[in-house]
């Protein structure tokens, strides 16, 4: 199950991450903002939190289920959450890859009449993927580790966990969400700070 989980999530993360990376380098300001927000939000939220919040919160409380079978349901949620979470890292890896391409190449692409989409497909992304292989590799490794944890603890026990929550429904959920909120409030500014720091320290060429 770990392998299945890893493979599906890696695929999802790659697709979502590429889309978010395109947002982050696009000439449209709103898309850039959305891309940046996505990365800041998901990079700074602990995976466990997302996992529990989706499986228990969304699925159980709001009734957003994918399958009647608790186990299948948990598996699908795990794939979604792992994809969404690691996409933030894939995006950053790709963006660092894009940054290794001299800006002149994008201009040259535009000046021979390629549209933004064509420049991305033909010139920027192929080089960005090559430049991003190392950080993409470490993201993949992290993803596999995380899926293992998710598979062993999360998915398998989600059904059991739910039963526990049902039993002492009162009290525990609000506490959990307050804790979650606190965590986001703590980590988000830290992430924003690091982003601005890395921007200030980036090598200008």
């Amino acid at each position, binding site marked *: 199950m770990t392998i299945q989980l890893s493979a599906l999530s890696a695929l999802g993360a790659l697709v979502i991450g590429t889309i978010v990376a395109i947002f982050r380098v696009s*000439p449209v300001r709103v898309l850039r903002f959305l891309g940046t927000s996505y990365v800041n939000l998901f990079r700074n939220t602990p995976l466990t939190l997302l996992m529990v919040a989706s499986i228990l919160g969304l699925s159980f409380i709001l009734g957003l289920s994918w399958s009647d079978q608790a186990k299948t349901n948990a598996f699908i949620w795990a794939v979604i959450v792992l994809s969404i979470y690691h996409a933030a890292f894939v995006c950053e890896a790709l963006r660092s890859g894009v940054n290794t*391409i*001299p800006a*002149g*190449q994008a*201009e*040259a*692409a*535009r*000046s*021979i*009449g*390629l*549209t933004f989409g*064509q420049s991305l497909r*033909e*010139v920027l992304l*192929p*080089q960005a993927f*090559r430049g991003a292989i190392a950080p993409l590799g470490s993201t993949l490794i992290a993803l596999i580790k995380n899926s293992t944890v998710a598979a062993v603890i999360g998915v398998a026990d989600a059904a059991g966990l739910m039963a526990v929550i049902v039993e002492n429904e009162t009290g525990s959920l609000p506490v959990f969400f307050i804790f979650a909120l606190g965590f986001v409030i703590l980590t988000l500014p830290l992430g924003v700070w690091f982003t601005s720091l890395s921007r200030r320290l980036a090598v200008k060429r």
Partner: protein
Amino acid sequence: MSEPLVVLTDVNKHFGPLHVLRDINLTIGKGEVVVLIGPSGSGKSTLCRTINRLETFESGSITIDGKPLPEEGKELANLRADVGMVFQSFNLFAHKTILENVTLGPIKVRKVPKAQADKRAMELLERVGVAHQAEKHPAQLSGGQQQRVAIARSLAMDPKVMLFDEPTSALDPEMINEVLDVMVQLAKSGMTMIVVTHEMGFARKAADRVVFLADGQIVEEATPEEFFSNPKSDRAKDFLSKILTH
């Protein structure tokens, strides 16, 4: 003058508080070769870049062959294809072969079949003297060779006008002439060209007109002979005395 091809009317551009282009009025005729010259920071690159809209401008108008520059989008991409640009730093696509660099535009933008694009590209590479390097990657070529490939890449789009922004200033001295020779040939073949360069030899040999830019304004326009031997404005005299003593 021949039929006008590129017409700039009262073009103004700012970078924040900096007024980089001031009321630029410039008409370039079909087949004309114009050399843009001026001190560093006078706005030569910016002027080139606004002509194919790599930079926006705030007021005035620029038309190419009678058509005004469209807003960003597909239409603009098509217009850019009609305006070739050669950069100081070559900017070849590092992951593609020399041949692929030249055929990318024709195949993707002009929708030319690959076999035909390859054939045309080889002819152009032959013309600039790098046909035997077609299967290599840009990093394996010398600067002079890369710049000649960049010229072939622009030519492959059959542009109406070519812009050159200091095409030889990043090159080792012994490679400058091989690039200038290609440009002189191109000028002789009737291509409309706007060339930012301090190479007076090229200006004398190939240019119909020299346009002297200082602080974002066109200060003087004259034939190369007249401009280099008998500049009118003090700015131009001062500038020429500096580059001549070097």
